[in-house]
C-alpha cells in the first residue's frame, strides 16, 4: 500500500484543476454530491451510480451479542446499516483490468 489517502480536499482540487471551478465552488460541489447521496440513503432509498456501484440500506433485526471484554450477553438493537456493492467496472479497474461493460 502506498500510504496516500484521498480526501474531500483532494476531490475539490481535482474539480478546481480539471473542470475549472473556483476552489470554493469545487468544495461545494463535492459536499453537495455526498450530501445528496446521504440524504437519499437516510430517506431509505437505494442509490445506484452506474459504473461505480450501488449503496443500499438494510434493516437489521434485534439479535443477541456479547460484550467481548466481560462476556455479558447484551441485545443489539434493531438498526439500519449501509451496504455498498461495487460495480463490475469498479472491480475490474481496482484489479488493473480493462473496465469492461456494466454488470
Amino acid at each position, binding site marked *: *500500500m*502506498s500510504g*496516500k*489517502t*484521498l*480526501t*474531500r480536499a*483532494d*476531490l475539490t482540487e*481535482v*474539480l478546481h484543476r*480539471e*473542470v475549472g*471551478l473556483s476552489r470554493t465552488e469545487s468544495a461545494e*460541489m*463535492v459536499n*453537495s*454530491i*455526498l450530501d*445528496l*447521496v*446521504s440524504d*437519499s*440513503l*437516510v430517506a431509505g*432509498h*437505494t*442509490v*445506484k*451510480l*452506474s*459504473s*461505480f*456501484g450501488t*449503496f443500499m*440500506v438494510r434493516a437489521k433485526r434485534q439479535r443477541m451479542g456479547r460484550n467481548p471484554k466481560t462476556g455479558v450477553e447484551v441485545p443489539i438493537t434493531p*438498526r*439500519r*446499516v*449501509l451496504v*455498498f456493492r*461495487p460495480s463490475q467496472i*469498479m*472491480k475490474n*479497474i*481496482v*484489479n*488493473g483490468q480493462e473496465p469492461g461493460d456494466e454488470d
Partner: protein
Amino acid sequence: MIKSELVIKIAENNPHLYHRDVERIVNRVFDEITQAMHQGNRVELRGFGAFSAKERQARTGRNPRTGAAVDVTEKRVPFFKTGKELRQRLNTKG
C-alpha cells in the same frame, strides 16, 4: 436515486452551470475515487465513509454447478465502511 437524478438535482441547485458540466463533475468525483483504489490508496470522506481495496488471497474455489475445483487468483475487492455521521443519521429518526 440513480446518477442521472443526482445530476439533475445538482444542476437545479446550480443554474449557472450547464447540465453536461454537472454530469462531468459528478463522473469526475466518482472516477477519482475508483482511481485512488486502483492505485492502492484509501479514500476517506469525513461524515460519509471510507473506500478501500481489500486483498483476497488466491484460493481453490468450486464451480457451484459441476463441483469441479477451480483456481481463483488473488484479487482486490473494493470495500466501503460507512462514516460515523451517516451511520448515526441512518438510525436517528423513529
